[in-house]
């Protein structure tokens, strides 16, 4: 009897006006007990493998901010018998492509490798994940690059705005500070801190895997155990949820530059909330539906105040916000902010029209299948579904949830979610005629 258990769940087909995307997801459980979601696609001879470790940079130990980010940058800088150069040469010889990234909620590994080089590519990736060397010269070299990025961010109005907004919103939670760390914290990191960061994050209890491409379920089962079976079972604990606070003020961070950059937001809604889909449709109409959104229409199309303005549901693992961004010349940002506040108040009080609702539903349901257009893209979606705790048949039911949203749902959720009194702005630049509350 085979020790490989895999379940072929269904041929999930997604029906929308116009497009149908058939995405056949299999849940594969390896003999060693590692779960992955797989879509077999044998037309092109390569595999896209997306791995995520939940927690990401939020698992930084106290006083060690930036350790996980620096560790992530070092994963490909030497492993096993290979130093940084040897590792890069091996990867190039195999034409395998590995990318390592980390953000507040996860550390991600995106790998692509050719069918003809699969075993050797997996062996190389395995050594990087399980036995990174963190040689001192590599630590110092990559630390220098990170410090350079931190210094650049300090002069970038978008980054300054993000930092100020996060700092005032998230209190003492890890979300409040940049995952890059500070010049001081990164400057003080030792090789031991990097090793500890690796042990804290790359563990099986935080592991999610999505795979798309030229591989069978049975082959994948063996691959999973080989690649990931040796990781520790557990590491650092995920932090508590963030306590967020907003006061409806306008904080100005003075910075000499011609165009002011603003971030605005207030409390949002969880993905698990029964009202999430009405909120999602609502936000599409308000600020996320491309050129047709109310914010784009009022701020850009009618008044020419900006090149881009948006809003989005920042429903994160440990906090839920509604956030938006806009940039306008220093003498026009005050007007842009007034228009945004007015639109926020209007939609909260009045909801949306039946016509707007239908246009948004058609747009959302129609463009959904267009996302599934490449192995790497689908692998990312598969792992995102798992980290978001969505069922494996979610793709087939998602558009029904969008269509089920009624005008009354949107009206109710608009009144509940959007609060013009609490909408808080951080503006970086030299704005004119803007009353700051800080």
């Amino acid at each position, binding site marked *: 009897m085979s020790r490989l258990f895999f379940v072929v769940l269904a041929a999930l087909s997604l029906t929308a006006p116009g497009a149908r*995307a058939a995405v056949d997801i299999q849940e594969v459980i390896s003999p060693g007990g590692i779960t992955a979601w797989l879509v077999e696609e044998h037309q092109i001879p390569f595999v896209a493998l997306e791995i995520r470790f939940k927690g990401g940079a939020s698992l930084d130990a106290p006083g060690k901010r930036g350790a996980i980010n620096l560790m992530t940058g070092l994963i490909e800088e030497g492993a096993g018998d290979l130093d940084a150069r040897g590792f890069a040469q091996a990867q190039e*010889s195999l034409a395998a492509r590995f990318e390592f990234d980390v953000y507040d909620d996860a550390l991600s590994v995106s790998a692509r490798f050719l069918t003809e080089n699969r075993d050797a590519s997996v062996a190389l990736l395995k050594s990087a994940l399980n036995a990174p060397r963190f040689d001192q010269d590599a630590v110092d070299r990559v630390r220098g690059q990170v410090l350079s990025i931190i210094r650049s961010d300090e002069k970038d109005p978008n980054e300054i705005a993000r930092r100020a907004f996060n700092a005032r919103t998230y209190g003492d939670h890890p979300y409040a500070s940049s995952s890059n760390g500070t010049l001081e914290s990164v400057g003080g990191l030792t090789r031991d801190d990097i090793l500890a960061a690796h042990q804290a994050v790359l563990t099986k209890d935080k592991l999610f895997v999505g795979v798309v491409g030229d591989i069978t379920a049975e082959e994948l089962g063996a691959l999973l155990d080989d690649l990931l079976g040796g990781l520790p079972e557990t590491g650092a604990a995920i932090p508590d949820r963030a306590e967020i606070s907003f006061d409806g003020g306008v904080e100005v961070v003075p910075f000499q530059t011609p165009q002011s950059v603003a971030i605005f937001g207030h409390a949002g809604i969880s993905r698990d909330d029964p009202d999430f889909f009405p909120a999602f449709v609502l936000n599409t109409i308000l600020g996320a539906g491309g*050129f047709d959104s109310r914010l784009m229409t009022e701020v850009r199309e009618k008044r020419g105040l900006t090149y881009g303005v948006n809003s989005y549901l920042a429903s994160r693992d440990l906090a839920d916000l509604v956030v938006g961004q806009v940039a306008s010349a220093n003498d026009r940002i005050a007007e842009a902010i007034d228009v945004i506040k007015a639109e926020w108040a209007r939609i909260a009080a009045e909801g949306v029209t039946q016509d707007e609702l239908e246009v948004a539903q058609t747009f959302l349901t*129609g*463009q959904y*299948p*267009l996302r599934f257009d490449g192995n790497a893209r689908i692998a990312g979606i598969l792992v995102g579904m798992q980290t978001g705790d969505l069922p494996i048949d979610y793709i087939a039911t998602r558009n029904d949830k969008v269509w089920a949203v009624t005008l009354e749902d949107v009206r109710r959720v608009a009144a509940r979610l959007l609060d013009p009194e609490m909408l808080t702005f951080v503006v970086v630049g030299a704005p004119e005629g803007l009353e700051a509350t800080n």
Partner: protein
Amino acid sequence: MRRIFFSFIGLVIALPALAVPVTDYRLDNGMQVVVIEDHRAPVVVHMVWYKAGAADEPPGKSGIAHYLEHLMFKGTDTLAPGEFSSTVAANGGTDNAFTSQDYTGYFQRVASDRLELMMQMEADRMRNLRLSEDLILAERDVVIEERNQRVENDPGALFSEQRRAALFLNHPYGIPIIGWMHEASALTLQDALDFYEKFYAPNNAILVVAGDVEPEEVLELAQKHYGPLAPTPGLGARQRPQEPPHLAERRLIFEDPRASEPYVVRTYLAPERDPGAQEEAAALALLADVLGGNSATSVLGQKLVFGAGEAIYASAFYQGLSYDDGSFGVFIVPKPGVSLQEAETALDNAIAEFMEEGIDDAQFERIKQQIRASRIYAEDSTQSLARRYGAALTSGLTLEDIEAWPDILQATTKEQVMAAAARIFDRNKAVTGWLRKPSVEVTQ
């Protein structure tokens, strides 16, 4: 770690040829039709590319190609302002547009059964644009805010504009695509219409359709919708002012209090990929990968970033896909405590050593191996494939050139790369720029 934080670093080895079928037609009115099949998902990308970009603008009207691109969404005889994009969205699609020095492109991504509607609307706005004065003024403000966002707020982008202006002595490539602020903010409706009426015509356009479609059906639809459009008579060949011989090295220092990391960039005027003659460009593309590429294996990375090197980052780049001459560049971001002069000297020494030492066999073979693999990976994104084809075709290349490019890269020898290096590294054809903070901070 290869986190890229400077925007001028591009992927050097691009545009692999494909295993997927590509079909080429030409309509009677001169419009070229290219179909790239990918039947994995029921999706299609519909693109119309005009062989007109910023470098085709009349003098004094910089930014008009890009401004017109914005105005193309502002209505026709049958579509109200904004209705084009609304219709695409209502059909579950997304749309956008882009402008470069050599082309302007419009695209929609939709379910493949909506292709005909996209063609109908795109054909309509090729010849029937209708604009009103008040709409175009608000949109001009949007363009100014776009320039603010992309350029005025970013010292690196301002620096890049200054360097390009210095590199091209006569060719309009020295003028920014989005336009100089004083010219872009003075563009008129008539400026836009003049450009539109001349260049937006079937005999100056290429249709690229990629995705879940059959070539014969695409041709049939193209004949129905684009076929009746009248060409612009007497359009003639694309003629831009060409560069005179470059006889003197140019150097510039750009200071901005917002600049964080100082760096040195040198760009050399470089031949681009020419139809039927891509060998020199192939050698330069490989040279950029030998020098730049992954800093753990590249020449500049090994000499300048690793060990006791002077740099946080150092690399090379080549812009070889253009209608006229492009550029080849090298740059170095020094470690704290290393001056820009010391950094530039280190960069010069590294290149001089490389010219003595030549190319490592194993490195050269690894680069070739990656070019082979990139043909497989490239098939995963139909949209970027379509975009690569459109960009190459509007840069003067043919489908045969696109197909031949990977083989030309494979056939290029180390000796040819070194010979190309010897020709390109001529300081009289180069601009060397330093970006830094002002030595004395200005206070208010």
